[in-house]
């Protein structure tokens, strides 16, 4: 069974004002097939955790470890992590002028699988996946994320999730900016991937609404660069009612 294990992770970034310590000892274990929700106030370090797992060069790991099936993730380059089966659906997907979605998807699929997808089936697979996410076929010929609306960018992230078939996915506020219908469509995409491939999910969100569609096994409250509390789905409901005051007060 696949396991992503984060131990006492400490991360900083360099800013104009000097070194800023963001993650202050994060512990988190996600097994294959499990869905973990992470909730926490703005600026508490959720995206930092997501980017650090993916290997963004801006984040410096000061201590701790990330292991994936016993492999040292921190030793891997960004693309090696993706090929090992880690996926990050970004809070702010990047526009890439001149690179079409079709070309991008085929290149990524080839890189992940180590071989070109079958010419005969790939086109139909992409078309089918786009259809399920209610993406117009014209997106295939457009440049990656260029001029996409916020919601279209998020659908495009989940399209990649479904096509690249990772073992673990970090979804960083994939629900933000989605209308009611899109939220449902995107959630269904995540659930399909979860059912079909036993995807493990780390779902970062501010809202319980998405948790009605994607049922978490565990909820973690993230405050000031650490996990402050852990529980089941009921914890999310409580957060929605009470907010984060309790943790912030405790911290002060």
């Amino acid at each position, binding site marked *: 069974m696949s396991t992503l294990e984060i131990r006492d992770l400490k991360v900083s970034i360099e800013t104009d004002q000097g070194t800023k310590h963001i993650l202050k000892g994060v512990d988190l274990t996600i097994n294959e097939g499990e869905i973990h929700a992470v909730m926490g106030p703005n600026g508490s370090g959720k995206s930092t955790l997501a980017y650090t797992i*993916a*290997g*963004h*060069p801006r984040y410096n790991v000061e201590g701790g470890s990330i292991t994936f099936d016993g492999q040292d993730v921190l030793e891997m*380059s*960004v*693309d090696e*992590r*993706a*090929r090992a089966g880690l*996926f*990050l659906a*970004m809070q702010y*997907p*990047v*526009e*890439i*002028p*001149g*690179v079409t979605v079709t*070309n*991008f998807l085929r*290149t*990524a699929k080839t*890189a*992940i699988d180590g071989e070109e997808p079958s010419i005969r089936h790939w086109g139909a697979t992409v078309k089918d996946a786009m259809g399920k996410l209610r993406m117009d076929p014209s997106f295939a010929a457009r*440049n*990656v994320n260029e001029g996409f609306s916020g919601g279209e960018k998020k659908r495009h992230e989940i399209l*990649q999730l479904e096509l*690249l078939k990772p073992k673990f996915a970090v979804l960083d506020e994939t629900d933000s900016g989605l209308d009611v219908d899109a939220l449902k469509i995107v959630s269904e995409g995540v659930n399909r991937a979860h059912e079909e491939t036993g995807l493990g999910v780390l779902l970062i969100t501010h809202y319980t609404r998405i948790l009605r569609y994607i049922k978490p096994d565990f909820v973690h409250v993230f405050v000031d660069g650490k996990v402050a509390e852990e529980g089941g789905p009921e914890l999310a409901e409580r957060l929605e009612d009470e907010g984060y005051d309790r943790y912030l007060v405790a911290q002060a």
Partner: protein
Amino acid sequence: MPVQTRSERFTSTAHADFPEVTGREVNWKYTPVAKLGDLIDGELDGSPYEIAYADAAGATVEWLDRTHALVGAAGIPEDRAAANAWTNFEKALHIRLEGDAETLTVVRSTLGGSARAAHTIVSAAKGATGLVVLDSQGDAKLTENVEIVLEDDANVTVVSVQQWDDSALHLASQYARIGHGASLRHIVVSLGGDVVRVNPSAHLAEEGAEAELYGVYFADAGQHLEQQVYVNHDAPHTRSRVTYKGALNGEGAHTVWIGDVLIGRDATGTDTYEQNRNLVLSDGTRADSIPNLEIETGDIEGAGHASATGRFDDEQLFYLQARGIPEDEARRLVVLGFLSEVVQKIGEPVLEARLHEALEDELAAAR
């Protein structure tokens, strides 16, 4: 000093009419003139040279005498090097398009390293369509004039490919005169050569004339690639689009883009937009990018310009790598994606594929 209207810049076909080049002139100040003395002032071989082409229906190729009426029909030199070429060329290479002509590619690859002058004319009959590729390879030390004459309603693409050897020196002035309702698509591709300066101008001389001017260039270490673009809106309801994109990589890679657009008093209803974008891939490069828009009538449709020179975007690289694509390939995708917007405008699959490959080679060499 009063700003001079672009259309009033001094022009002449005679070398002696221009003062000596100091390197401070508005049209020489970015150019490494010290390397170009032989072309600006030296003796030039102006005899016809070897060309290669495959016959294309609707297109004829011939050498004309200097006295032919077409010589000077599109424009005359604005600088001393172009005038030196004009003074010294013996015959003009003329490409004539009639009806719906097939694609014609004229290759010159054996010019050699001694200083030369050349004169080329592409003319299109009323209503003619076609695509002409002027394909330059091998070694060269060349100063030349290229005239493009489109009669009414002609619709023509001219592609000028500079894929010279590393040591080549090349100065070109290209002048297009675009007739009533005619439309020119002009594409400058500069990849190889030590100093390559191609200055295209488009004279939208009659009502409804259109010009789309594209350029793509990739400058390596020590290479100087320059283009001074000039669009003269000189009649009502004329339209122009200028898009030049370049990449720079390596110590001393230098690119220059100057985009002058003049909307004259008679050019009511003009619609124009020009842009230059440069992608900087390493330290030690320099990209000069200077758009100028001069408007002499208030009654226009639209006029805009943009210029941006930016570093390679690490966020784009991260995004692609996060999808499993190795760094090398991610870099290649981003740069090719950026430049291929222009290559795709050519509309000639074989040439497009060749240029894609050439760009890939430039990138591979860049590492």
